[in-house]
């Protein structure tokens, strides 16, 4: 058929999608089964049916919400990164590198330290507000000076902003012994403390973010050809860009509110997915969401295994995976505008 020939990616995309989905299910299962305590099959099945009679079943029941959170947060971060890379046409764009999740974290820490806020409900709003303000701030700085915001200006403005905000955050937390413990463990970025209640709280934000990204996916394909071409193809460039940004900010802000800042998922996953399925955003966004969920599950499981009987936060593990990957991207010869 001509149709498939015109629009094909490097691999057959529906098949890849099914495979990725199967991997995700397998990882979810591993996440429930693997941990500091070894559990038997019966205990897993029992816990899934809501029983909590043995220690094993109790452990599995504890692992359920963190597994769900890893899936939700991972997919939100992966999607957020893919959106940011598309909007800025910048291969290095990522909620972490553009400073957006540091901004979210900064606001939450200020709320903790100065306004005595300790309700998760307020965290969410603070984090989204922080992510939004940082995103606008970075966008504003990078459009200063001559010409339009270039990928390079974006990355520089984001790096500078996130460096500044991290030091502000440290400055706010350091003199406060009373909140230092909580703030530090939260800033590490993790899914360990998840409860279904906390997930439920951010779910509406994430759902809106997912929905908005579905709306702009096709439009981002035009935007990828440059603003002028996109306008020529009848796209409202400013509008599309705004919705995509807002969606990315919602996804990353809400995730940061419950998990703390988790870096590199949004950077690594869209790149891998692009190698796998090509540059069509309608596929890329779906794959980035699934891939992000897989990566965060892997990171969480790894964190549980390598430092038994204690645990390593996913934020730390993703940084270990992400940092070498970042160098690899920068060293790749074909790094240029997306």
């Amino acid at each position, binding site marked *: 058929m*001509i*149709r498939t*020939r*015109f*629009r*094909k990616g490097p691999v057959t995309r529906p098949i890849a999608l099914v495979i990725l989905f199967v991997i995700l299910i397998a990882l979810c299962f591993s996440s429930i089964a693997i941990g500091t305590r070894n559990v038997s099959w019966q205990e897993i099945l029992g816990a899934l049916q809501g029983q909590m009679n043995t220690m094993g079943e109790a452990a599995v029941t504890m692992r359920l919400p963190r597994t769900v959170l890893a899936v939700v947060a991972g997919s939100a971060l992966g999607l957020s990164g893919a959106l940011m890379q598309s909007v800025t*046409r910048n*291969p290095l764009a990522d909620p972490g590198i553009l400073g957006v999740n540091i901004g979210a974290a900064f606001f939450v820490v200020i709320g903790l330290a100065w306004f005595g806020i300790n309700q998760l409900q307020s965290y969410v709003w603070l984090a989204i507000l922080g992510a939004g303000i940082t995103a606008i701030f970075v966008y504003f700085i990078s459009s200063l000076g001559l010409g339009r915001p270039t990928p390079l200006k974006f990355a520089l403005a984001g790096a500078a902003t996130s460096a500044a905000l991290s030091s502000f955050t440290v400055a706010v937390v350091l003199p406060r012994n009373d909140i230092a413990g909580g703030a530090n463990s939260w800033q590490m970025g993790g899914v360990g403390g998840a409860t279904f209640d906390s997930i439920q709280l951010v779910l509406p934000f994430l759902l809106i973010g997912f929905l908005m990204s579905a*709306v702009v996916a*096709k439009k981002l*394909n*035009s935007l*990828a*050809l*440059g603003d*002028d*071409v996109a*306008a*020529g*193809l*009848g*796209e*409202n460039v400013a509008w599309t860009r705004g919705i995509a940004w807002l969606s990315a900010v919602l996804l990353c802000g809400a995730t940061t509110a419950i998990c703390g800042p988790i870096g590199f998922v949004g950077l690594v996953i869209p790149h891998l997915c*692009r190698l796998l399925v*090509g*540059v*069509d955003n309608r596929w890329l966004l779906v794959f980035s969401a699934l891939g992000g969920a897989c990566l965060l599950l892997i990171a969480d499981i790894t964190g549980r295994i390598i430092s038994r009987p204690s645990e390593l936060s996913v934020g730390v593990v993703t940084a270990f995976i992400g940092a070498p990957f970042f160098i690899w991207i920068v060293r790749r010869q*074909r790094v*240029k*505008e*997306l």
Partner: protein
Amino acid sequence: MTLKHQLILDNLTAGYRDKTILKNINIDISPGQITSIIGANACGKSTLLRTMSRLLTPYKGQVLLDGKSIHNAPTRQLAQTLGLLPQSPIAPEGITVGDLVSRGRHPHHGLMSRWSKTDDEAVAKALETTKTTELLDREVDELSGGQRQRVWIAMALAQETDILLLDEPTTFLDVAHQIEVLDLLVELNQSRGTTIVLVLHDLNLASRYSDQLIAMQQGQIFASGTPELVVTEDIIHTVFGLHSHIISDPISGAPMVLPIGRHKRVTSP
């Protein structure tokens, strides 16, 4: 044959920020013809094309497509009539020719509509017209400059608009590829009746390949009409500040400019 679309520039004044570049531009673009905008560097050629293609909103005046201002029209609907190829567009890394050309179908799709047989046909035809069918699965990055330009034109063709605006489609191409691109535009104009407006640097190619010329000088239209009317020694001198001798192009019969510089002359001035 459908009724040709009318593109009229009505008393346009436009520019960037506080710098006015175009002043009181009035012109009707001839439907079904090839019109080239010529003029010295920084005379406002590209600005005129950008305003015409709604990339730039004018301070004053309007661009009328079939009597309606394009700057107020729904942009997707407009994109079904008015196609645009900016100067040296950049393709995303790793995109295939097929994918790029398919994206030209964007204005014909809503949020939910699916890829149809009509889309396939439009893309196939665009590839065929630009002789890029065999490049289908190649990545745009690995193509030569001439091939890449043809692929971008194919994308604009897949859009199937009755009017096509191109900003210097021949920049960075060697002479053979320039001719190839211009021949392609003529074929398009003849076979589909597409109205084509382009900015061209090369005067002689503009003269040879255009039905109409618009000569601009300092943001205003100095002369417009057929190449025979516009390409004269006086006008070329005013517009480019260049002395020249005009002969008839032995290949096409269009007027041809022989520039007269200070050196390399057989006869002394």
